[in-house]
């Protein structure tokens, strides 16, 4: 007797649904389909979790493996254009979105695949209990409007209206949400999770009239003051998580270029972008920020300077693990900081901070407002700057009360 079926003995069972599909990417300032032939598939691991994966059919390598929980996403066709077989994978809890384009030679199964993905992800098979598939979930208003445009495709005016009403962060996510190497499910996390990574989605408009070809390239030019370039998520050592700097929308008035018949709609998009107010002071693309591990900044040199200050030492020692048998000394402090256990936690902290998760947690420490804001946006540099702005100044102001041990 086997409760989990024969598949429990393997790392994963065979795919529950699979179909040929391509990804869509953001590269630099251009948004266009990834022309590679791919396969989007779903399997249930032996941990009972649902994995949505994309693999490159030319070399059979799986590039993306997302764990998705029930009620976390919706998978829907994004346009009524008959030639554009573009689908959106949209998260409910935040504004993360991913786009795919169908590569199956015939369209007739598209709908079925779409339904299967939704049903399986939102009602994963439970062994012995049967599947209980209920109605599909109601559409989000945004998606309804997108999909409900009159005629085929989307009227540019309608598009711009809709986009104008989007929260800038949502919109930036629309542009830059990615299906990066380390796509992470957000099922257990409340609040926003911004994804990083090296690829991204396009808008949903597809204008190419030939079937089975990739949607037309669309471009969105955005000014970015951040010089960061696309980067791969950090995968070293024990913390291998995706970078997740918050995407920020940008204002731009540059016309789109390089697209084919889709250019009319795209220029509408870019002018909309130009009109959107941005609450970001710094424009970036989400994939541009490399994820820094704060362990790297805790060099010996830095530590020596840091610990030279007795005041700092005292403050830090107060937060060491309490244990009568461990002497609360400078030596212990140094050892703790250099211990693998501490460093592992610093790495985890770094990732959490840069994914925008820690804002709420850090409030309790009385950190300055702009530091919290930076934390909410997952912007490490802004966080660092905010902290220095606040603490360095007050330190200098108190320089007459110098407790620096310069001996």
């Amino acid at each position: 007797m086997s409760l989990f079926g024969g598949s429990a003995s393997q790392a994963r069972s065979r795919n529950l649904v699979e179909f040929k599909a391509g990804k869509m990417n953001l590269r630099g300032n251009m948004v266009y389909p990834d022309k590679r032939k791919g396969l989007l598939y779903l399997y249930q691991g032996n941990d009972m979790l649902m994995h949505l994966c994309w693999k490159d059919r030319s070399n059979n390598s799986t590039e993306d493996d997302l764990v998705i929980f029930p009620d976390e996403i919706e998978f829907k066709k994004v346009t009524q254009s008959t030639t554009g077989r573009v689908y959106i994978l949209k998260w409910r809890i935040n504004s993360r979105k991913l786009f795919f384009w169908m590569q199956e030679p015939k369209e007739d199964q598209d709908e079925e695949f779409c339904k299967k993905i939704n049903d399986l992800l939102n009602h994963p098979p439970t062994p012995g209990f049967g599947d209980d598939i209920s109605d599909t979930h109601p559409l989000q208003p945004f998606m309804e409007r997108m999909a409900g445009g009159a005629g085929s495709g989307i009227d540019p005016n309608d598009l711009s209206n809709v986009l104008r009403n989007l929260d800038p962060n949502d919109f930036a996510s629309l542009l830059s949400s990615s299906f990066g190497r380390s796509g992470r499910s957000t099922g257990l996390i409340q609040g926003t999770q911004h994804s990083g990574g090296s690829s991204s989605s396009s808008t949903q408009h597809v204008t190419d009239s030939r079937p089975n070809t990739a949607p037309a390239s669309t471009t969105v030019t955005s000014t970015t003051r951040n010089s960061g370039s696309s980067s791969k998520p950090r995968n070293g050592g024990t913390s291998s998580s995706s970078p997740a700097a918050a995407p920020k929308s940008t204002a731009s008035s540059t016309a789109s270029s390089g697209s084919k018949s889709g250019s009319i709609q795209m220029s509408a998009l870019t002018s909309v972008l130009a009109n959107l107010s941005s609450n970001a002071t710094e424009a970036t693309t989400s994939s541009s920020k490399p994820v820094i591990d704060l362990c790297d900044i805790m060099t010996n040199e830095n530590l020596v300077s840091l610990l030279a200050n007795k005041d700092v030492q005292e403050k830090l020692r107060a937060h060491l693990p309490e244990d009568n048998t461990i002497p609360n000394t400078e030596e212990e402090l140094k050892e703790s900081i250099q211990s693998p256990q501490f460093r592992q936690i610093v790495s985890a902290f770094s990732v959490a901070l840069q994914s925008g998760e820690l804002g709420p947690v850090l409030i309790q420490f009385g950190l300055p407002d702009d530091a919290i804001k930076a934390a909410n946006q997952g912007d490490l540099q802004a966080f660092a700057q905010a902290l220095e702005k606040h603490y360095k100044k007050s330190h200098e102001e108190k320089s007459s009360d110098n407790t620096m041990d310069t001996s």
Partner: protein
Amino acid sequence: MASGEWCLIESDPGVFTDLINGFEANGVQVEEIFSLDDDSLQQMKPCHGLIFLFKWQETDASNENMVKDSRLDEIFFAKQVITNACATQAIVSVLLNCTHEDLKLGSTLSEFKEFAQAFDPQMRGLALSNSEKIRYVHNSFARQQLFEFDSRDEKKDEDAFHFIAYIPFKGRLYELDGLKEAPIDHGAIPTDTEWTDIARPIVRQRMEKYSEGEIHFSLMAVVSELRRKYERQLEQILADSALTDDERNDKTSHLSILIHEEERKRESYRIENLRRRHNWLPFIVEMLKAYATQGLLVPAVDKAVVAKEAEKKRETDKKRKRI
């Protein structure tokens, strides 16, 4: 943490040793083996099981020598049901098959063994994953999940660790692989031979295979508690009137050093555990504030960003050249 969930734990001899004690089993400890060739295994005998861990999910397809007979009722073999529970499963497998007098199994594991003895491997795996007590101890060694933050990517990198146990059982060598259907019989252990001598070539073969593929692996041994062993030896020596004073002093000082080593080891496991379980968040925040106060933070972060970007550029360039 949802009930029923097993957290990721470190593959570390200190963690595994404390885990065993957490299960209230006594008399054994886990040591890491760095080389099969030297006499480290010899020095640490009696050895009750070898645990080979490697970073790979694929299990080789061969089903040779799989046990299919009534021995299945005697050997405690459980199929792997939960990935994160892997380590605990391997350790429990070794312990439940060990009949050596040094091992005191304790009530938790004895009860579990009784309960699950009559089940098939699948059900045993399930029973293990449902054992609240065992899971509770396992999870107490979890990597800190400070932030309600499900770092699944961390898990992805780590959960590719797979554990295989080798045990001597009633005069034969068995391989217990939770991803397979049954134990594998590697043959009889000749009398007057250490079982580890028989296991050595088999384990070595695996090691070589994984080295070629640059796959990380570790080897751990479940051995009788060393400190107790040394203390017994010390007693014997002190009582041995046949030794000269010099000989006696030599041996006792040597053993004292070894005993002291063990004490130090246990103490560092304890401290590591304290550090593992401590909430470091206030400390980290304080540290960042201190860096900021001294103007060290921004330059260090900026420098790290630049370095990362340069690294990324190098990688992208490399990729482009390949295409």
